């Protein structure tokens, strides 16, 4: 497939998600839904998508770059709750490097499975992702191996030529306790070409501003705001494991979960060492469609 076709496909999908998000704002489908999302952009917790619900998400990362042009990386995410224990997602990634170009950088398929049926002291979730991106991808959905800021200096025209087909596994260990969520992700990734296993981590903690629900419907009540912080970075590869020669980030964040099903997230991100970007501004907007599976199913089964 030619790159121009991929760009066309990506831009079409991105426009589709914009149009869908706009239509949903004014649609009768915009009824009370159940958004209750944590502010994390990189870390995952054990709270899966509700069964039958589809969440359409758009995220942006504005990245500063020493020694080169800044960039804006963005992705669309379609997250579907197949069952109460299985969530599947599809991503489309792209980026604009200022003064260079805007390009489609690839797609990702992701699955999260909750192996234990009840809530435990610590709740594991298994994560498997296949990604087919090129080296110009800058969304930083995770940091792994020896990812460093200077990797992003390669011009788009060169970086997009190199493919990165990768399998990524995560062990997500998370707990909800007295209103808090604590989560820890261990990442292991394998480029399907001849590259060593790479590792990474993400840690997160968050809490709603109010634990009790308000007795009336409101958009600005404390219960709808969840503040948190996440920290993530690389752990090297199988030949050189550790915290050295890789990047690490600290990111305080805030999520605003509106009763209408919309969620807004913002997360200023700070690099913690010389290998990291100094500053990233990350934000996202998402809308949850409850009962999407039923609606889609009725299209094929010929009944409501």
């Amino acid at each position, binding site marked *: 497939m030619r790159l121009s076709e991929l760009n066309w496909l990506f831009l079409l999908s991105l426009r589709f998600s914009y149009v869908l998000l706009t239509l949903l704002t004014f649609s009768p489908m915009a009824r009370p839904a159940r958004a209750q999302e944590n502010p994390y952009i990189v870390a995952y917790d054990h709270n899966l998508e509700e069964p039958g619900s589809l969440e359409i998400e758009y995220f942006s990362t504005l990245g500063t770059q020493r020694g080169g042009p800044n960039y804006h990386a963005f992705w669309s995410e379609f997250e579907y709750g197949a069952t109460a224990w299985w969530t599947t997602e599809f991503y489309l990634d792209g980026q604009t490097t200022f003064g260079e170009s805007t390009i489609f950088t690839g797609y990702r398929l992701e699955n999260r499975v909750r192996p234990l049926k009840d809530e435990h002291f610590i709740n594991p979730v298994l994560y498997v992702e296949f990604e087919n991106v090129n080296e110009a991808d800058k969304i930083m959905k995770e940091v792994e191996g020896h990812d460093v800021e200077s990797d992003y200096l390669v011009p788009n025209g060169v970086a997009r030529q190199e493919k990165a087909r990768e399998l990524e596994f995560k062990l997500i260990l998370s707990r909800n306790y007295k*209103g808090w969520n604590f989560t820890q992700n261990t990442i292991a990734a394998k480029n399907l070409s001849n590259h060593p296993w790479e590792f990474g981590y993400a840690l997160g903690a968050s809490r709603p501003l109010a634990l009790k629900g308000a007795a009336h419907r409101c958009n600005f009540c404390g219960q709808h705001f969840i503040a948190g912080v996440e920290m993530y970075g690389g752990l090297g590869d199988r030949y050189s494991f550790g915290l050295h020669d890789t990047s690490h980030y600290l990111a305080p964040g805030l999520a605003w979960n509106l009763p209408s099903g919309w969620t807004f997230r913002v997360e200023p991100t700070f690099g913690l060492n010389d290998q990291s970007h100094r500053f990233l501004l990350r934000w996202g907007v998402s809308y949850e469609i409850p009962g999407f599976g039923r609606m889609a199913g009725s299209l094929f089964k010929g009944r409501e």
Partner: protein
Amino acid sequence: MRITTFLAISFLAFATLALRAQDASKPKESVYTELEKVPDKNKRMKNPLANDPDAAAAGRVLFEEHCEECHGKAGMGGRKAPSLRTEEVQNAAPGAIFWILANGVVRKRMPVWSKLPDPQRWQLVSFIKSMGAAGTGSDTAKTP
């Protein structure tokens, strides 16, 4: 066109699997038996908001946001989840309902609601118990 074909096949396969998974998880027994399986120590838990005059009202708002989609308006049951107005639920210990909210019944499509803080789950319990019994409901969750 190999990438396009792979992308299309992958997407269709995942969509089919995901949609079929809903049918595969059809419950075979009464969903209310889950209330009986709640550990005794959890059943004995008291609702700390039992005397809070606003608890049921706050629970109603939470119910509309998180539960109504499946359990239907006024908890009368929907296509995906059973009625909460049956004797089984209304006579259940508050602690048992709280435990079900915290743990879900994930094999029967009831999500885990531990992401709601404890006070909000107790508010939901207050509202559910305030609804009272209302005759027949759907005994088992129907899938689309």
